[in-house]
C-alpha cells in the first residue's frame, strides 16, 4: 500500500521552492511599489520579465558549473571567464567599427547582420568549447589526485583569462551598437514596452533547459553522466571510460558558458567585471539548488534572476551606489544558504 503522504517541512523540495518563490515575489511586489502610488502591477510585471531573462542567462553559466561539479567534483572558477570569452568575441565580431581588427575582419566577411550574429555565436561557442577541452585535458588531468590544487588551478586560469581579455579588449565597458532582427522589435506587457531580445533569451534558455534535461534523462550518455554523479568510480569499474566522459562534459559546460555570454552581449554589452558577477551568482544558484542537482540548478538560477531584478528596483540609500545590490544580492544569498542549509533545495543532507 502506498502511504506516501505530503509532509510540510523544509526538507520537502516542493515546500521549500514554493516558500522561496513566495518570499521573492512578495519582496518584488514591495520593491516595485512606492508609498505614493501603492502597488504598481506594470512595473512588477516588467521586472518579472527582466528577472526571468537574467535567470535564463545565469542558468546557461550555472548548468555547466553544476554538471562539472556533480560529475567530477571540480568547482570550475574559470566558468565566468568562459562566459566573458563568449560575450567579447560575439560583440567584437558583430560590431565592425570597434574592438580588435582581427575579429572585425571576420565580421566583415558577412555583411548581413543577422547571419553575422549567427556566425559570431557559433565561433564564440566553438572557441569556448576548445578552450574548455584544453583546460581539462592539459591542466586538470594531472591533478585528479589533488582536489585542493584543482580548485586553486581553475582559480589561476580564471585570472589568466581575465588578464588576457583585459589585454586584448581593454578595461572599458562597451555597448552593443549593431541592430539585428532579434533586438529590433518591442513587445508590451502590462502596459510597459520592452525589447523582444529579452523574449528571445528567455526562449533560448527554456529550450536549453529542456534539451539538457532530455540529454540527461533520455540518452545513453545521460545515463552514464547521472551514474557518474552518483559514483564515478563505480561507473569506471563497469568498463566505461569515465575520463572521456569527464572531458566531454567539461567541454560542454565551458561551451554552454560561452554560449550564455554570446547571447547576453546584445543586451548587456561587454565589461570585464561581467564574468565574476555571473560566476559568483552562478555559484550562489548551484549551491541554492544543491550542488550537483540539475533540477535544483535550473530552479535556483531563475530564483536568483528574480532576486537580481527585484533588488535593482529596490530603493537604495543615497550614500550607497545604486549598482551595489546587483553585485551584493547573490553574495548575501550565498552566505545565507551556506549558513542555514548548505545542502541546498535538492541536495542530500550530508
Amino acid at each position, binding site marked *: 500500500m502506498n502511504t506516501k503522504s505530503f509532509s510540510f517541512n523544509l526538507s520537502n523540495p516542493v515546500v521549500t521552492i514554493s516558500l522561496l518563490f513566495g518570499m521573492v515575489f512578495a519582496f518584488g511586489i514591495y520593491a516595485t511599489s512606492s508609498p505614493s502610488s501603492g502597488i504598481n502591477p506594470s512595473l512588477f510585471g516588467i521586472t518579472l520579465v527582466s528577472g526571468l531573462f537574467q535567470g535564463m542567462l545565469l542558468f546557461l553559466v550555472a548548468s555547466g558549473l553544476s554538471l562539472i561539479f556533480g560529475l567530477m567534483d571540480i568547482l570550475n572558477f574559470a566558468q565566468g571567464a568562459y562566459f566573458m570569452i563568449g560575450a567579447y568575441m560575439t560583440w567584437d565580431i558583430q560590431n565592425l567599427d570597434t574592438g580588435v581588427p582581427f575579429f572585425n575582419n571576420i565580421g566583415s566577411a558577412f555583411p548581413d547582420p543577422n547571419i553575422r550574429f549567427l556566425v559570431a555565436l557559433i565561433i564564440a561557442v566553438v572557441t569556448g568549447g576548445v578552450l574548455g577541452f584544453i583546460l581539462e585535458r592539459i591542466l586538470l588531468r594531472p591533478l585528479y589526485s589533488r582536489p585542493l590544487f584543482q580548485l586553486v588551478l581553475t582559480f589561476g586560469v580564471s585570472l589568466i583569462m581575465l588578464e588576457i581579455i583585459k589585454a586584448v579588449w581593454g578595461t572599458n565597458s562597451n555597448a552593443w551598437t549593431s541592430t539585428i532582427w532579434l533586438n529590433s522589435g518591442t513587445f508590451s506587457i502590462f502596459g510597459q514596452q520592452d525589447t523582444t531580445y529579452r523574449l528571445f533569451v528567455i526562449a533560448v534558455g527554456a529550450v536549453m533547459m529542456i534539451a539538457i534535461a532530455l540529454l540527461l534523462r533520455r540518452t545513453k550518455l545521460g545515463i552514464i553522466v547521472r551514474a557518474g554523479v552518483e559514483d564515478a568510480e563505480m561507473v569506471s569499474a563497469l568498463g566505461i571510460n569515465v575520463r572521456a566522459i569527464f572531458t566531454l562534459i567539461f567541454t560542454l559546460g565551458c561551451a554552454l558558458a560561452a554560449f550564455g555570454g554570446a547571447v547576453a552581449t546584445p543586451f548587456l554589452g561587454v565589461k570585464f567585471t561581467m564574468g565574476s558577477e555571473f560566476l559568483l551568482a552562478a555559484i550562489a544558484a548551484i549551491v541554492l539548488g544543491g550542488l550537483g542537482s540539475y533540477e535544483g540548478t535550473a530552479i535556483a538560477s531563475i530564483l536568483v534572476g528574480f532576486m537580481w531584478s527585484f533588488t535593482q528596483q529596490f530603493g537604495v540609500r543615497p550614500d550607497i551606489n545604486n549598482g551595489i545590490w546587483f553585485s*551584493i544580492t547573490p553574495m548575501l544569498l550565498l552566505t545565507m544558504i551556506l549558513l542555514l542549509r548548505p545542502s541546498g533545495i535538492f541536495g542530500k543532507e550530508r
Partner: protein
Amino acid sequence: MMINPPKSRTQEILDVLWEHKVYIVIVGLLVMLPHLIGWLTESSPFATARGATVVLRGQSGVWQAIFIEVFALAIFVMSYNLMFGFTGVISFGHALFFGIGGYALGIVLQFGGIENIDVAFFAGLGAVFGLCIVFGLFIGLVSLRLRGVYFAIFTLAVAQIGWYFVENWALTGRDGGFSIKTVPSWIDSIQSRINLYYVALVCFVLVFLFIRRLVNSPTGAVLKAIRENEERAKAIGYNTLTYKLFSIVVASVMAGLAGVLHGLLNKQGISPQLFGVNYTVDALLMTIIGGVGTFTGPVLGATGLHLADVAFRDRIIEIGGVSIQLSDSWALITGLIFVLVVLVFPYGIVGTYYRVKLWIKKKTTSQAPPAPPPHG
C-alpha cells in the same frame, strides 16, 4: 657505560643559537640593513627636516619601504599558510582581514575624531584586532559545517561582500579610497620610516617564532592531524572545531597586523584593492611557491615575489621589435607563474629542497629508517 655530563645552562643556550645560526645571521643583516644601504649609497636612513617639511631622500629609504612591504606580505602569507598548510583549510577570502587592517586603522585615525593622536593609533589597532577576531570567529564557526570547496566559496563570498561594501561606502571615498593624513609622527612612513621598519621587523620575527612554536606544540600536532584527516582526529577525541577556530582566528589577527603595516607604509592609498582577490591570490601563490606547510617557505615566497615585483614591474622588454611594458601584463605573468607552479612545482622551494635531501639520504643509506615528513 659512559654518561654524558649534564650540559650547563649557557652551553645549552649556545647550542640552540648555533643550531639556528642561519636565522640569526639573516635577522642581524635585516637589523643592519637600513644603515648598511645608507653607508653603501651614502644616503641617510633618517629623514631630515627641510624647512617646514620633512623629507626622506636616497636609497636607504627606498629599501626600507621595500622591506617593510616584504615583512607585511610575509606575515600575511605565513598567516595564510597556518590555515592552508598546517590546518588544511582553504580560504579564498583572506584579503578580507588584510583590508580590515588597513581600513579600520585608517578610519579610526582619519575619521575617528580622537584628539590625541597616539590614543587614536592604539584605538585603531584595537579596532583592527577586535574586528579580525569577530570575523575570524564568524568564519571559523562556519568551518564546522562547511568543508573544502564549500568553505572556499563561503570565504570568497564574505570577502566579496566586504569589497563591495567599501567600494560603495561614501565615507571612505568609494572606489577611490582615502589617505590617512594623521599618523603618529614616531611611526609615520615619511618622518620616521626607520621606526616603522624596526616595528615591522619585530612583528615579522615574533609572528615567525610564534607560528613555529605553535606548530611544534601539541596544539600544532592536532592541527596537522586535522589537515591529514579531520574525521580521524575527531574520532580520537579531539574537538576539531576548537582547534580550527583557534587556527583561523590567529591567522585572521596576523593578517590584520599585516594590513596595518601595509596601511601605515602606503598611507596615501587605502583603497578597496586591499580587499581584492589579488591579495588572496598573492597569499596562495607565495605559499605554494615557497612550500605549503613549511615555516620558511612562505617567507621565501613573499620575499622573492615582492623583490621580483620591484625589480621587473617597471621594465620594458623588447621582443622582435614589439616593446611590452611589464606592468601592463604583470597580473598575467603572476597568473601564468601561478598555474605553472601548481602544475609542475607543487611542493615549492622548501618542500622540494627537503624532498631532494631525503632522496639523496635514501640513496646513500639504502636501509635507513623512513624519515618523518620534514617541516623546515
